[in-house]
């Protein structure tokens, strides 16, 4: 299954190698990793998505804590959080074939950020399944995808809400308390969700 870890690490040379080397040593494939700044100077935030056995979470977290440059680790796999990924998608399109892509982009609440005679570029933010949904719809409608660049998953825990707010936001796993079907489905890399909003 896919595990998602958020690690706050010192912003120093070699820290990414240490974290990556840990997964290499455990023979676990990193599906995606995003690194960037945080609200604290000198501290970087890593979101690591890794494919490992369901019981591996504790050991990975404990091993991350063994690295001296790692300050905090959160295993957010089973928790309610906001998940986002940014994708840039370049699609082959001429003046004649553009218009239906505009429609699709509208439905998926994505944006066109570049327009050239032979291609256009779509920027899209959302959960993985939404991005995969757009890619699939584009492919199904015969559009040639020239390039895809995805950032990988970023997650942030939701704040404290009353239960009614959580219900209204349809937070995955809220009603079923714990193993949520909707979140498991979202974690499934092959899942295709063509619903535009999340």
């Amino acid at each position: 299954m896919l595990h998602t870890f958020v690690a706050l690490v010192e912003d120093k040379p070699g820290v990414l190698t240490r974290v990556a080397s840990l997964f290499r040593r455990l023979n676990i494939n990193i599906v995606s990793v995003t690194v960037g700044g945080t609200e604290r100077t000198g501290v970087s935030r890593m979101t690591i998505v890794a494919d490992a056995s369901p019981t591996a979470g504790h050991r990975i977290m404990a091993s991350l804590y063994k690295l001296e440059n790692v300050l905090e680790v959160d295993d957010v796999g089973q928790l309610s959080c906001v998940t986002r990924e940014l994708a840039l998608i370049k699609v082959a399109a001429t003046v004649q074939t553009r218009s239906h892509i505009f429609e699709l982009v509208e439905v998926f609440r994505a944006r066109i950020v570049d327009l050239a005679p032979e291609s256009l570029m779509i920027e899209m933010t959302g959960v993985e399944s939404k991005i995969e949904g757009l890619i699939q719809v584009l492919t199904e409608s015969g559009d040639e995808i020239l390039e895809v660049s995805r950032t990988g998953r970023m997650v942030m825990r939701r704040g404290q809400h009353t239960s009614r707010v959580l219900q209204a936001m349809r937070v995955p796993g809220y009603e079923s308390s714990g193993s949520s079907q909707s979140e498991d489905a979202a974690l499934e890399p092959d899942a295709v969700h063509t619903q535009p909003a999340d």
Partner: protein
Amino acid sequence: MREAKEPAIQSRPKGTAKPQTGNTPAQSTTRLTGAEILWATLVGEGIDTVFGYPGGAILPVYDALRKFPVRHILVRHEQGAVHMADGYARASGKVGVAIATSGPGATNMVTGLATAMLDSIPLVCITGQVSSKVLGSDAFQEVDITGVTLPVTKHSYLVTRPEDIAPAVREAFLIARSGRPGPVLIDLTKDAQAAIADFDFEAAAAEARRHHPMRSVAPDAIQQAAELIRNAKRPVILAGHGVMQSGAEEQVRTLAERLQIPVASTLLGLGGFPATHPLSLGMMGMHGESWVNEAIQNSDLLIAAGMRFDDRVTGALPTYAPKAKKIHIEIDPAEINKNVKVDVALIGDLAEVLEQLLPLLSARTDSPWLRQINESKGDAAVRDITNLPDNGHLYAAHVIHDLWRVTDGKAIIVTDVGQHQMWEAQYYKHETSRSLITSGGLGTMGFALPAAIGAKIACPDREVWVIAGDGGFQMTACELSTIAQENLDLNIAVINNGYLGMVRQWQEFFYEKNYAASPILSPDFAMLAQAHGIAGATIQQRAQVVPAVSEARKLKGPYLINFQVEKEDSVYPMIPSGAALHELIRRPSVTTAHLGHNPIIETAEDQ
């Protein structure tokens, strides 16, 4: 960050005035070179001995050495330097320090670092590095040593500025000895060693370690553990290296005595609980005695104290102690449920956890379980080779047993890796912590001789014996020269059977006696010792063992004894790799000893 409490007094230190020793480091800011800062910080951390080998990229550090009250032991190979620092740390409980130059000097340290990493030994290793301006350019003797050693160090630093040296070194010491100890490497560029910076020992102190949120001993977990212990009918304590790392000998002993719980030790745990104590079972695992492993298999509660359920200890995991509940007391959260699923995990310092646990447990006097274990020893103990009359053959077990008797079990024994290591663990009874120094996790051949040098320097008043095989001894035999140069009073027993003995044993048991590359030719070890100016003797008869050992002990200075033992002897009992703990290969029966040959010792001709 680093504030000068008073103005910098002088631009350069002169002569021997500079460094202060022990725990009274310089209070004020001083201008020093990076090399001087290194030594001053080491001295401030309480270091008075280092093991090293000079070279181009570390020369500024060596140039500054004369100004500081530090004894430098010149080794013959950098692997030896790390093993010596390791032996020093194991014998003393302090942090060991090794120094090498860049490139090959640094890569030679890798095996030593891995050895220390696997056995959680606190070391600080310092390597020279090419100038920061040419880093990454494949300069002469440049190697990316922080990259190379990443998986075999607890942490590492690449320091390129003199002002960063003191904070890095101080933090390295803190990391090396805190939590689960381990080796830390500091790679110092040559320009950082030569440049000048302010030095203030106090201001360079490392920040308090971040709290480890997974290291926790929940009160209800303590209650649960106490409940399991109170209700257990057949409990066993598994005492590991953590007992001595944590200094929990008294607590473990109190727990065992109060509830009459027998104690089985791991290889690295030997000595943490007195071997002659009535509750001591001895070593568990692959070459543990049958009653030890049977007790574990039949127990209803295992109390794992500072051990990590290594594969050499558990055998096949699915059949490991199937009826037992398990309590795991361990400082490293990553070890919990790694190999063996446990019922209660108490993640913290062993001594502290036991201090919390002991008040909840009241004394028990009667233990049928203990009687049952003692009865199960049966004829397994009688089969012991030491009960065999002298039949003209010299067995390694006899040598080690006699060595134990003559030294009254009080020596520090440093072993290499292989058959002799297991015989030592079986026949030398260790009564105190830090009296057995051996490479357990990595199983590093060549460890014994240099590690013993470190141990002797750490404990000059203790009797130190090396026990090494003829194979492993030759891996680091060059350090005989270091012993001679330092005129160290340590004794060496080479258990010489003309084979890589453990390899030969596995080939005999599992590869149809195809002795591929296991027969090994050795020099005359006594003559080799003599070539170094070290006295030596060669022993072939059992009757000669005690006089030779006594002679070695009497002589002030090093002594080497070459014991030419039975060639095709095997370590019994043995649990084949991957088999369950009770599926052991037993010692051949002694009751048929009157027939033709000695059945305890199988030879290649036996079937």
